[in-house]
């Protein structure tokens, strides 16, 4: 089952141009990242005169001529097509209310379940307290609609979930899922990473699950370091 999640990871992992060799340093809002006309302001930065100013607290990254700002703290901002992990909090006549740890709760309509569900027996499919991985179908001011139609989506059974800071999810996934695949490979666990920072792990033994969790937490904490994939690999060698 775990392999099926990779598709979702690839789309929201680190982008191609954020190479590990690029220079990264912490900036505070309003701070001048670099001066000069040669640079282009990227995401989270803006140009004032001939300076590039940070618009957020985070890691500034100079990749060639483009200055990018990688946030390292902050709440989850839902976007369409994000895969998230959530918990069923209520059952209404037309669907399930899902807590996805964002400012508005998610709604999963009964039609969006992959198989037919009888309206009178909705709790036999998903009951209150169940944990699911779902895809965000639309984000509207009045709420977020979810769907379970898609590869690897559905109820998560057994295993356990924990949280990391949502803005560090791209690092945990790595470029095209490289980081999460490495952890899966080394521990033999099934891992699903939700864009909302919830992570579900299920392995053959408790030990391997704990090891996977430690690895994920290490990646999210060492967010300011480059070349993390190698470091994690080295860490696994040590642990053995």
């Amino acid at each position: 089952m775990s392999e099926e999640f990779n598709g979702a990871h690839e789309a929201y992992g680190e982008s191609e141009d954020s190479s590990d060799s690029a220079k990264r340093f912490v900036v505070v809002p309003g701070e001048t990242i670099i001066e000069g006309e040669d640079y282009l302001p990227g995401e989270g930065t803006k140009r004032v005169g001939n300076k590039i100013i940070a618009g957020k607290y985070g890691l500034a990254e100079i990749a060639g001529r483009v200055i990018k700002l990688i946030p390292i703290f902050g709440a989850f901002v839902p976007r369409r097509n994000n895969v998230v992990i959530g918990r069923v909090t209520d059952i209404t006549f037309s669907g399930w209310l899902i807590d996805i740890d964002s400012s508005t709760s998610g709604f999963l309509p009964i039609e969006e379940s992959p198989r037919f569900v009888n309206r009178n027996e909705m709790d036999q499919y998903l009951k209150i307290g169940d944990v699911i991985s779902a895809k965000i179908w639309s984000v509207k001011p009045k709420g977020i609609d979810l769907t379970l139609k898609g590869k690897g989506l559905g109820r998560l059974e057994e295993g356990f979930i924990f949280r990391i800071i949502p803005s560090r999810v791209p690092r945990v996934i790595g470029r095209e899922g490289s980081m999460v695949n490495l952890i899966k490979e080394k521990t033999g666990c099934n891992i699903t990473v939700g864009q909302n920072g919830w992570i579900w792990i299920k392995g053959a033994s408790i030990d391997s699950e704990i090891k996977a969790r430690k690895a994920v937490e290490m990646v999210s904490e060492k967010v300011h370091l480059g070349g993390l994939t190698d470091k994690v690999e080295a860490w696994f060698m040590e642990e053995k």
Partner: protein
Amino acid sequence: MSKEFKRPDGRKHNELRKITAKVGVIPNADGSALFAFGDTVAIAAVYGPRQLHPQHMQNPAKGILRCTYDLLSFSVYDRKKPGPSRRSMEISKVTEWALEPAIDLSEFPNQVVDVQIYILQADAGTRTAGINAASMALAQAGLPMKDLVVSVAVGKNDKHILADLNKEEEDYEEGEGATDFAIAKLANYDELTLMQMDGKIQPKRVNEAVRLGIEVCKEVYEAQKKALKDCVMEEK
């Protein structure tokens, strides 16, 4: 003139009390910080952006900022009765106005960012310490910001303009008495976002006081910047 005047704790006229700044003191909050000017200690926690209730307060054009400032009951010598008071409600509102120009909530319609500021220990200058803590906490919460907000109080004892009065100086009674002048500004811009005065001052000396305030704000900014940067490095 100011140099001859002896301050009770021996500071120079433009010298601040010892600044302590720390980020990430409340793990459950989206952003949090502690800021202290000597014996005045403030903590701030930021939650959000999150759904705003009651609904009638929602703004469909942009998110709103909601500040709460309060003294904890043990922060002052005579126990402070807990709960909002006329004074704390006013300071909550001016803090909100002081922070608003720095933060951009247009991405979060109908939502709210809650900022809660509590004073652990009060020794004059609590609103300025609160604003400094809140500005660091907002930054840590990862919100889009134009700049950090720095705040400091300047004052006057008799004829002498001094930076960052402590309680003893605030209660000074000789000569012209004591004046307290709280300012807040955007760190890298010449934009003041808060200016409050308590006491008396000659109109032509206001300029001198504000200028001293702006000058010492730089020191506060450096402390905030350092705390925000150290917070990431500590996680190594």
